[in-house]
C-alpha cells in the first residue's frame, strides 16, 4: 500500500511538472505581447524595453523557465504582469474559495437531481417517470450554460428579485449572503453534471439489481423501497464514487463560463482573463492550480476506491 501510494504521488508530481513546463512554453507561443498593450499609450519603445527587463523577460526563454521553476519550488508563483502586479499566489488564494464554493454547491445540486433520477430510471425503465426525470437530468446537459445562467438571472433576479443577480460574498460575511449569491451559479453549473451522474447511477443500479439476493427479493415481490435504499443503493454508489470525484474536478473547469456570467472571479475567469491579457505568470499559476485539483482528486478517488472495494488490487 505504502509503495503504491508513493508511486502514485511521484507520478502525480511528474505530471504536474510536465504540465508546468508545457504551459510555460505554450503560453509564450501565443501571439501577442503582454507589454505592448500596457505600453501602447506611452508610445515609448525604450520604456517597454525597460519594463521587459524589470520583469526579467529579456533573457533567453530557457533561463526564464529555469528561474520560474526555481521560484516555483520555493512556493513563489511570481506576480501578475498585466496591470495589478499582484502576487499570483494571492490571486489564486482569492479565487480558489469562490470556485470551490460554486463547484461544491453544484455538486450538491447535481446529486439532488441525479440520485432520484438514476434510481427511478433503473427501477422503472422507460416508464413516464423515467422519461420525465431523464429529461430533466438531460436538459441541464443540453443547454449552453451561459444561456441557462442568463435565463436564471432574468427570472430570479431581474423579475422575481429573489436572488442577487451577480457577485460573490465570502462565507465570512454570513451564510445567507454567501449562499444566495451561489444558488444560481450552482444550478447553472450543476445541472450539467446531473445527467452524467444519473446515467452512472442508473447503470450500476441495474447491475446491483441483478445480484442473487436482490433478484430473489424482486421475484418474490419483496423488493421494498427500504431494501432498495438501504441495501441496493450503497452498493450501486460504489462505482459512482469514482465518477463523482471526476465530476467534481470537471465542475471546477465547468465553472469557467458560469463565473463569467455571474461576475465571480474564480479560477476559471482568472485563467481566461490571463490568457486574453497574455499574463503569463497568472495563466501558469492558475493552470497549475486547476491541474493540481484534477490530479489530486483523481488520486484521492483512486485511493478511496481501493478502500471501498477491496477487490481492486494496487497495481
Amino acid at each position: 500500500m505504502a509503495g503504491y501510494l508513493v508511486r502514485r504521488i511521484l507520478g502525480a508530481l511528474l505530471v504536474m511538472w510536465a504540465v508546468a513546463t508545457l504551459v510555460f512554453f505554450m503560453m509564450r507561443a501565443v501571439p501577442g505581447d503582454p507589454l505592448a498593450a500596457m505600453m501602447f499609450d506611452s508610445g515609448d519603445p525604450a520604456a517597454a524595453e525597460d519594463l521587459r527587463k524589470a520583469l526579467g523577460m529579456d533573457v533567453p526563454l530557457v533561463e526564464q523557465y529555469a528561474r520560474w521553476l526555481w521560484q516555483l519550488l520555493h512556493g513563489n508563483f511570481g506576480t501578475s504582469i498585466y496591470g495589478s502586479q499582484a502576487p499570483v499566489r494571492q490571486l489564486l488564494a482569492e479565487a480558489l474559495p469562490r470556485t470551490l464554493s460554486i463547484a461544491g454547491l453544484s455538486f450538491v445540486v447535481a446529486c439532488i437531481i441525479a440520485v432520484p433520477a438514476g434510481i427511478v430510471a433503473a427501477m422503472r425503465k422507460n416508464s413516464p417517470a423515467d422519461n420525465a426525470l431523464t429529461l430533466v437530468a438531460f436538459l441541464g446537459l443540453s443547454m449552453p450554460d451561459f444561456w441557462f445562467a442568463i435565463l436564471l438571472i432574468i427570472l430570479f433576479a431581474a423579475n422575481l428579485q429573489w436572488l442577487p443577480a451577480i457577485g460573490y460574498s465570502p462565507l465570512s460575511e454570513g451564510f445567507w449572503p454567501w449562499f444566495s449569491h451561489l444558488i444560481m451559479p450552482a444550478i447553472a453549473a450543476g445541472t450539467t453534471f446531473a445527467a452524467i451522474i444519473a446515467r452512472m447511477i442508473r447503470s450500476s443500479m441495474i447491475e446491483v439489481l441483478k445480484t442473487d439476493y436482490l433478484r430473489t427479493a424482486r421475484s418474490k415481490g419483496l423488493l421494498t423501497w427500504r431494501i432498495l435504499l438501504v441495501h441496493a443503493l450503497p452498493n450501486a454508489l460504489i462505482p459512482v464514487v469514482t465518477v463523482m470525484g471526476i465530476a467534481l474536478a470537471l465542475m471546477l473547469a465547468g465553472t469557467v463560463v458560469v463565473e463569467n456570467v455571474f461576475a465571480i472571479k474564480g479560477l476559471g475567469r482568472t485563467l481566461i482573463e490571463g490568457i486574453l491579457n497574455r499574463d503569463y505568470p497568472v495563466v501558469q499559476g492558475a493552470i497549475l492550480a486547476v491541474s493540481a485539483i484534477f490530479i489530486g482528486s483523481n488520486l484521492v478517488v483512486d485511493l478511496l476506491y481501493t478502500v471501498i472495494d477491496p477487490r481492486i488490487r494496487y497495481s
Partner: protein
Amino acid sequence: MTDHHDRSAPPEVAAMQAAWDDAHDFDPRDPLVGLSRAEMSGPQISRRGVLRLMAAAGTLTAAHLLPAGPARAQGKAGGTLKCGWAGVGQITTLDPARMNQVLQFQITSNVLSGLTHINADLIAEADLARDWELSADGTEYTFNLREGVTFHNGEPFTADDVLFTYERSKNPAVSIHSRALGNVKGIEKLGPHKVRFKLAGPQASFLVKTTERSSGRVLTILNKAAIDKLGEAAHGMMPVGTGPFRITQHTLGQSVVLEKFDRYYDPERPKLDRVQIQPILDAEPLAAAIEAGDIQLIGGGQIAPELIDRLVANKDLVVTAQASPGFESIWLNPHRDPFKVSSFDKPIAELMKEKGFMVRLAIAKALDRELFIKQAEFGRGTPAHGSINPAMAFYFDKELAKTSLQRFDLAEAKKLMAAAGYPDGKGFPRLKVLLTPPMRRQVEVVRAILKRNLGIEMEPVVKDIPVALDEFSTMEWDMVRIGSGGDYDPDDAIVDWMQTSSLFNGQKRDKAKYPFGYFSDKEADALIEQQRVEGNLEKRRDLVRKADRITSDKVASAFLYHPATILIHRKSVNFPDVSRIPALVDLDRTTLA
C-alpha cells in the same frame, strides 16, 4: 446632448436673462470676446469668461445658466452606494502612472486629486491648487497650493508631493504617460505651498491635460511615504491620495470599496459614507443587477446599447445621455491598394485625381452616419466628421458636418467609386477589417451599410485587444476599426492622433517601408503645433478647427461617430448636474434619498 428631463423649480428667470444678455454682450469681431487675460487665469476661468466663450462658439444654452453647485440636494448625507462597472472583468490597476482606461480614471477621480480638475464644461477649476498665475509669455505657471490638505494616510500635502509626483511621472519606466510632460522643462519649489512649472513653450492645454486629476493625467498627486510603505504593487491596487474617498478594500475582479475620507479639504463633501464598485463584464447580468436593485448606479465602460432602451423604460431608473469626449473611426491604410496615397502633402484638387484618394473619400462619404448611430447605437451618439468631439463644446465645429468633404453623399460616393474603376463595387477587393471583440456589432452595421451603398465586401478579423493594438501600430492591415476616449482637450485628439509624429500614428511600422503611418500632412502638423502653444482661446479654437477640417477633408480616417456617455442610476440616487463631467463618475456630491 444632455437630456435631463427632471428639472424641478425653474431658476430666477430674470437672473438667467441677465446672464444670457451679458454673455452675448460682445463685439463678435473681438478675438478675446471682451475678456482680459486676467479672466483666463485661475482659481478657474471666470464663469463670465466661460459663458462668453460658449456664447461666441454658439454652444451656450439655457441649461448652462442654471445655478451651479449642489443646489438641489435632495438626499441626506450617509449611506452606501453600490455601483456596477460595465464591460470590465477586473480593475487591473489604479496607479495613475499605469492606467489607460476611462473606467479606471472614473474610480481614481474620486480618490486622487490633481492641481486642477475639469468641470462639466471641461474647463479646469482649482482642486489642490488654490489659484494660479500665468506669466506674460505663457511659459510659467505659478500655483499656490491649498493648505491644510491631508493624504488618506495622514501625511500633510505640500509642494514636495507635487515635486515627487512630477519626478515619478517623468520617468518612462514608471509612467506610461511620461510623454505628456514633454513640454515641461522643470519645476521649482517656491515655498511649502507654492510651486512653479516652467514650460519649454506655451501650452494651451496645460491646465486640462497636464495638471488635471482625472484621466490618468501625469500630475495626479501621490504621496511618497505611502508608496514606500505599501510598495508599488499594493499601492497600485489601493493608491493613497487626498480625494474625497479613500480606498479601503480592493479585491481584484470582485470589488473596490471606497469610504468617506473625514479629513477631505471640503467639509461639505463627500456625502456618502461608502461606495462599493463591482466590475461586471457581461451586459445582461449588469442590467438585471440594477433592475433588481443589487446595484444603484452604473459606471465604467460602454453599456451595450441594446439594453439602454429597456432601462429607460424602467420607472425606477434614471437614464441620462451626454456627449462623450471621444471619436470613433475606420482607418484606411494609405500604403495599400485600394486606399493608396503616396503623400497627403498636396492640395485637395490634386489628391482628388488619385484613385486611392477617391476610394478613401468614397468610403467616408458612403458612411451613412445617422443610420449607423440608429442601427448600431440605438440612436445615441453624434455623427463624426473629425476628431474634435462635441463634449469639447467650445472647440467642436458643428459646421463640419455640413461642409466636410466626408459628409454623407451617396451619389457623390458612387461617382467617386466609378471614377476609381470600381463602378457599383465591381472588381473591388474583399478587404480585411481588424477589430477588437467589443466592436463586432458595430462593424457588422458598417459592413451592411457599405455593402448596400457601394457594393463592397469586408471581412472582419477579430483580435484580442493586446494583439489588435500591436498590429494597428505596425501598419500591416487594410482597415481598422478603433477610436479614442477621454479626449477632454483638443490635444488629446489632434496631437495624439493626427500629427505625423502622433502617439498612435504607426509607431511600430517598418520605417524603411512606410515613410509615415496612417496619415501625414505638413499643414495639419503645423496647425496642430501652433494651437498647442496658443494661449488665446479664440485663436486656438480657430487653429484647432482648421486642423480638424484638413484631417477631415483629406480623410485621415473615415470618421464614424462620437459616442454618448450614458449614466444610469436608480431614482433613489441623487447625482447632481454639477457632477456630470463627461465620461467621469464623480461621486463627491452624490446622495441617497
